[in-house]
């Protein structure tokens, strides 16, 4: 059992195991379930993630409010034009993160990673890296265990709830988890995973949770998208040997502290930030006011 990232990395180094294996063994110890059971349950989660991504990039998705849907497909189309500035891997990941959150906003089936509002970053990053790294199914399942191990530390020492800690606790946590897991998938060390997470999460500190009309749509879908790009860049930095000057556990503590000091208006109450802009308020009135839902769709 580990409580901190330092302990997690220490366990992996002492036993000469990847972080994913430490997580699986810890799960066996705490639940008494078999290796096969635990592995296949995570493989089922991977299937759900893949289906959501595929739906989002192939089907016509629209949320009930009409606020979100279709952007993942736009990005795929743009990607195939070959004009992308940020590169194929990055933009594919961004598109697949969006796909997941668009399906989520449309009340589709997703796997929370660590929450539903932040469900796009971890699978988006993974499926964006598939073409480049060509991982086996086992490696993809392991990626999720590694992401889970780092998320486990955040959840127990800080928070993964936007209502408690703002968006930094949701998309911020997911971005840190994805960065750490991408490092292992690319063959990096447990210590590099910790640096990747510290770099990624450190960059998200202070991010507020300000959903327009209280819906998990604007800006959530795009924050997941850019979270995936941050995760890949942070992973690349750590794989290059760049270290976070502030240790990962201290970054997590800092995130927790920032969350506690954050005014309630910025913690999922839809009272501040983008939710409180003139357009944000207008959209809310349109969706929940007298205007029919169809008029929202027409104005897109």
């Amino acid at each position, binding site marked *: 059992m580990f409580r901190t990232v330092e302990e997690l990395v220490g366990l992996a180094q002492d036993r000469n195991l990847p972080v994913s294996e430490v997580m699986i063994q810890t799960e066996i110890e705490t*639940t008494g379930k078999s290796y096969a059971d635990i592995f296949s349950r*995570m493989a089922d*989660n991977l299937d759900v993630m893949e289906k959501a991504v595929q739906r989002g990039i192939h089907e016509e998705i629209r949320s009930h409010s009409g606020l979100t849907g279709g952007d993942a497909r736009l990005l795929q189309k743009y990607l195939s034009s070959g004009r992308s500035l940020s590169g194929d891997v990055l933009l594919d990941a961004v598109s697949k993160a969006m796909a997941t959150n668009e399906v989520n906003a449309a*009340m*589709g*089936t997703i796997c929370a990673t660590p929450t*539903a509002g932040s469900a796009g970053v971890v699978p988006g990053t993974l499926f964006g890296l598939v073409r480049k790294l060509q991982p086996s199914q086992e490696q993809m399942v392991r990626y999720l265990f590694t992401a889970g191990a780092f998320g486990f530390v955040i959840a127990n020492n800080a928070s993964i709830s936007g209502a408690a800690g703002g968006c930094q606790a949701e998309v911020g946590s997911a971005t840190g988890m994805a960065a750490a897991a991408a490092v292992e998938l690319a063959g990096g060390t447990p210590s590099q995973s910790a640096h990747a997470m510290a770099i990624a999460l450190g960059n998200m500190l202070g991010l507020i949770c300000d959903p327009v009309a209280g819906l*998990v749509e604007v800006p959530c879908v795009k924050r997941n998208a850019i979270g995936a790009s941050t995760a890949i860049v942070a992973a690349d930095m750590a794989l290059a040997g760049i270290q976070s000057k502030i240790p990962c556990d201290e970054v997590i503590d800092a995130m927790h502290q920032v969350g506690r000091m954050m005014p309630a208006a910025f913690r999922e109450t*839809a009272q501040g930030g983008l939710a409180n802009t003139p357009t944000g308020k207008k959209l809310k009135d349109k969706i929940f006011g007298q205007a029919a839902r169809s008029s929202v769709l027409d104005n897109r």
Partner: protein
Amino acid sequence: MKYRSVFDIIGPVMIGPSSSHTAGAARIGRIARKLFNDCPDRVEVTLYGSFAQTYRGHGTDVALAAGLLGFDASDPRLPDALTIAAGQRMAVSFNADTETQVEHPNMARLHLTKGDNVLDLVGASIGGGKIEITEVDGFSISLSGSNPALLVLHRDKYGAVAEVAGLIAKYEMNISYMEVARHEKGHVAMMVIQTDEEIGEGLATEISALPNMLNVAVLS
């Protein structure tokens, strides 16, 4: 530690859009339904904190109704729960209390009735779909819902706890957490027992048959 399993972080598989406001709410509703052990005629829901502010946008009301119908958070019928509840003559009303300051940002009080059968429950959604039941019928408890658990309402008499614990041992099961809450000495008390293993119907039936037991509910 609040989170014990990697599947609390990578999971649950659920219907969107919000793990705390949709999946967590469905879980709170489902636990209330299990403890009530019947389909209620009426449910009055009071929402607090962020639940009260944003419940319509997140489908918190729909998800609570889904849970009260016994659906889990990944049930594809979840989005239609309010219509299905109306069809089953379960009247669910929602009241947003934005004034009362609450301990946790996402809290709901559920008051279920059917004839003389009444259940009052307070639940909090603490993030990532995880929940905590903090109050049942006025008893302050702490129940995560992520481990198998027994809730036993019993007369506050000597031996009651020992007999229940004895039966659990007979089934070769391990208690991971246990508490007993009561209002007044000698009246009614509630045991909350979490176990490492799944709790079978056999054990629940045997506990119900013990003297001094008033109600036994199993959460798996």
